[in-house]
């Protein structure tokens, strides 16, 4: 299927305005003004930490300045290895044009609640693991394992440096069905409910048993039980139309980790 580059571009360019606040217990002297930043929905919090740390450093007690940074929204620690757009959509679902106000901390990293993927290196290796898992689901891992280290680097550098062409030059190989197939084997999807961070993963095929391309209405039926019906899906801040095909969604609406991250709305019967 020819890539709908306009859609890929729009997804790539999605941004969120974030208002970073300091942790008042870490401040010495004058309370700083918050720090505002436009951040890509596809990025990760540890990739913006340097800029935010640089701004707050002179207001922070010396013993905290080099501490492992983490973030919270209204007391909820934010998972460092989830794309920022996923965090935002889970915690801030109402349409709202005001910046998302979150607090940055440089001490007391909550190791019990948060996986400490707080450096670029750790995040990169997590990112590659996600790509591998997604490729296992799509192509039995055959495409990613045929790639070279430099291709993996190009994906990561394209993502962290916001280089669309650099990223997609490699990612398109991961986003094509394998050899003579017309679709992926399975669609890599993570399903989220409410503002809970735990997600559900299961095998979702792009085709029905009769070989028809499945759409979101089919997926709703698949996720529904007699007592609970799936009634809607959102990703990238967009309500998705139920006629959208799963294969098309996987190719165009996946995050750079090659997974679709869908918020599911349920209705109890």
């Amino acid at each position: 299927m020819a890539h709908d580059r306009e859609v890929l571009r729009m997804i790539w360019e999605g941004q969120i305005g974030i208002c970073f606040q300091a942790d008042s217990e870490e401040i010495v002297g004058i309370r700083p003004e918050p720090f505002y930043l436009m951040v890509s929905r596809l990025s990760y919090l540890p990739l913006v930490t340097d800029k935010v740390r640089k701004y707050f450093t002179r207001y922070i007690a010396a013993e905290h300045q080099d501490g492992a940074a983490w973030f919270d929204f209204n007391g909820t620690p934010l998972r460092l290895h989830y794309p920022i757009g996923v965090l935002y959509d889970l915690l801030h679902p109402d349409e709202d044009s005001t910046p998302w106000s979150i607090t940055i901390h440089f001490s007391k990293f909550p190791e019990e609640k948060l996986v400490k993927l707080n450096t670029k290196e750790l995040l990169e290796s997590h990112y590659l693991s996600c790509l591998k898992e997604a490729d296992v689901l799509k192509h039995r891992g055959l495409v990613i394992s045929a790639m070279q280290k430099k291709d993996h680097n190009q994906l990561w550098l394209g993502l962290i440096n916001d280089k669309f062409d650099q990223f997609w030059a490699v990612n398109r190989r991961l986003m094509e069905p394998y050899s003579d197939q017309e679709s992926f084997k399975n669609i890599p999807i993570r399903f989220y409910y409410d503002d809970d961070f735990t997600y559900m993963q299961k095998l979702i095929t792009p085709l029905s048993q009769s070989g028809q391309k499945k759409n979101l209405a089919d997926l709703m039926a698949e996720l529904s039980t007699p007592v609970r019906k799936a009634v809607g899906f959102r990703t990238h801040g967009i309500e998705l139309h139920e006629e959208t095909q799963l294969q098309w969604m996987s190719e165009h609406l996946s995050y750079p980790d090659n997974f679709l991250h869908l918020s599911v709305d349920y209705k109890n019967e």
Partner: protein
Amino acid sequence: MTDTEEAQATASTSTTTTTPTEKDAAKICVLLNATGNVPIIKKRTWTVDPNKTVSWIQKFIHKFLKLDANEQIFLYVNQTFAPAPDQIIKNLYECHGTNGKLVLYYCKNQAWG
């Protein structure tokens, strides 16, 4: 993790299709394989609560092998990828389980990083 002598016994008599006992019905059968220079855990098949995380299994292996605090356990699914520490076993089993089991490889150094 719970001991699965029972399940193992069934497995050895009825080859592939093990019928889990009532109590274990909701649990997931995990096969642990050592790789690289890590000590081997003799008992390979364990049953695990579906909502346990990858890091819970890492801690379990670490404790079981009495490793030093500075030693780390890496886990891989089917010799392919390293799942996130907060990933739950149920999700891995649903997507990557084979023949009623989730096959995990553990080692002390990154293997299929």
